[in-house]
């Protein structure tokens, strides 16, 4: 620890001497802080510019969504705003059918997240805590299914849902999203549950707990961090999906928000205020989840990273 600090200080002390040179000699006690200040300013300048560049499109869509159509038609979509209204949100929400679409999205996303994480945690529990035959093969088979490019599944899945009589119904979307996603969640949760010490489970077995109780009362609560991370992550994935939705659904009133956004794009050609408002509505739920569960989110992305 001491060594670390010593070298860090050394490095910082060298900075100004090298960069500012003799000018700083006059104030021998100041060089370290001012060098650091210079470096800090440089850092904040570059990181700030980068962040501003990254946030610019978001700021722009927010501004566009509060302009009137007349303003955009008169001054162009890229000009400074000359108006302020929330009317475009009403148009997108009511006339554009975004309300219905957002409800559809939630009707698909929430059951899919619960169902796939429920099923995946069961499989991960069994595969990580019991000496099942072929458990490694099963684990990799399930992960492999998730890595397939979805294109190979699109045609058969749409025909399959037609055959089942659930084509153009939200059940079909829930079904395929659960089936396709579960393999990845099993893999991640397996890695996490494997690390839970066996003694805890042994104690429960001695106390007479059955497998269901061990799963529900012991392993699941202990796996909460991984489950939280996967919940945040899978919520955005499923909510943001377009491809599965347009594969198994057809009617406009059944479409979730991403697909309905494409409908909005076709319906309100060059009415950028309405399209921007629609985009804001479509992005708001995942942004809320991100801001609220940022920590889990980042953890989740790294959980999925196989080293």
């Amino acid at each position: 620890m001491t060594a670390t600090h010593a070298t860090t200080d050394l490095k910082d002390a060298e900075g100004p001497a090298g960069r500012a040179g003799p000018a700083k000699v006059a104030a021998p006690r100041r060089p370290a802080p001012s060098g650091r200040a210079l470096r800090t300013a440089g850092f904040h300048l570059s990181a700030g510019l980068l962040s501003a560049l990254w946030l610019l499109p978001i700021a722009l869509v927010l501004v566009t969504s509060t302009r009137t159509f007349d303003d955009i038609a008169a001054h162009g979509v890229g000009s400074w705003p000359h108006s302020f209204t929330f009317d475009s949100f009403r148009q997108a929400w009511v006339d554009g059918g975004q309300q219905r679409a957002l409800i559809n999205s939630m009707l698909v996303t929430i059951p899919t997240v619960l169902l796939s994480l429920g099923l995946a945690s069961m499989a991960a529990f069994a595969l990580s805590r019991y000496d099942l035959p072929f458990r490694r093969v099963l684990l990799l088979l399930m992960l492999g299914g998730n890595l397939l490019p979805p294109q190979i599944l699109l045609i058969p899945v749409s025909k399959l849902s037609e055959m089942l009589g659930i084509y153009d119904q939200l059940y079909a979307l829930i079904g395929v999203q659960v089936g396709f996603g579960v393999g990845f969640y099993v893999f991640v949760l397996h890695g996490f549950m494997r690390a839970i010490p066996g003694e805890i489970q042994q104690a429960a077995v001695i106390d007479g707990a059955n497998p269901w109780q061990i799963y529900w009362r012991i392993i699941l609560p202990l796996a909460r961090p991984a489950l939280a991370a996967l919940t945040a992550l899978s919520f955005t994935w499923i909510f943001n999906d377009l491809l599965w939705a347009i594969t198994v659904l057809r009617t406009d009133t059944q479409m979730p928000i991403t697909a309905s956004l494409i409908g909005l794009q076709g319906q309100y050609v060059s009415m950028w205020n309405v399209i921007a408002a629609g985009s804001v509505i479509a992005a708001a739920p995942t942004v809320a989840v991100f801001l609220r569960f940022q920590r889990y989110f980042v953890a989740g992305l790294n959980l999925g990273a196989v080293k």
Partner: protein
Amino acid sequence: MALLGSTRRSRATRVPPVVLAFVLVPLLAEAFWVFWPALQGFYLSLTSWDGLSAPKFVGLGNFSEMVHDEVFRTAAINTVLWLLLFGGLSAALGLGAALLLQQERRGIGFYRAALFLPVVFSLVATALVWQAMYQPDGLINNVLEAIGLGGWKHAWLADQDTAFYAVIVPALWRQVGYVMVLYLAGLKGIDPVLYEAAKVDGATRLQQFRHITLPQLRSVNAVVLSVIVIDSLRSFDVVWALTRGGPYHSSELLSTYMYSTAFQSLRLGYGSALAVVIFVLAFGVIASYLVRAFREADS
């Protein structure tokens, strides 16, 4: 794992039935929605099918048709180009952002969040945000005009020469934050002692980067590579929302071509064959990802 010691024998012989059900139910769900359809997909690639009458077996006919298909050639070249450009740039920019933002200090959370925020947007929303900027009277042309580059003004999405690149930029904007997060975790895992030793030996910043940071990031690089390749081949939404693969197929990817062939032209057999090509392109990466996963599950 310690659990397996003394109780191994009894469990190896008799796993409680409920535990078997725990595995079988999810496995069947995946088999039903993924494995079985995937097998059908491979079979369908050998057929000619309009979706109404029964599929007609044509052997490798679909694949030999691809050889003469101009659009297929464009889509395949674009897909590879997409992989290289989108993949290479998102890795480079993600690593650069991670290096810039690796040190914990005041304000770092804000900068990281700013770069990461687009990751949570759907690709469709991302596409629409950028579509407005790309308009002839949009922000990008206005800025070019303002800085005296009025001659560069373009109908970015409507021009065959620029549409493809105009579609990559939004995809990159959204991907960089994701790659950055992966690299940030990787950088955090490097032992600081290595850098101190290098400093004592008088290594410059650049030398430290080349001889410590890059080699230490090897495992993260492998992860990033898998993520990028899989994401590239899946890229569909952003192209579909911005150009539908046009104008004149100039921004067509295999994924968009497959979708329009199957669901708009209703050539389901040929569409399946295109999907098989995508699978073959992804196969190497999927296999290496699984090998690494296998090693991890083993340890």
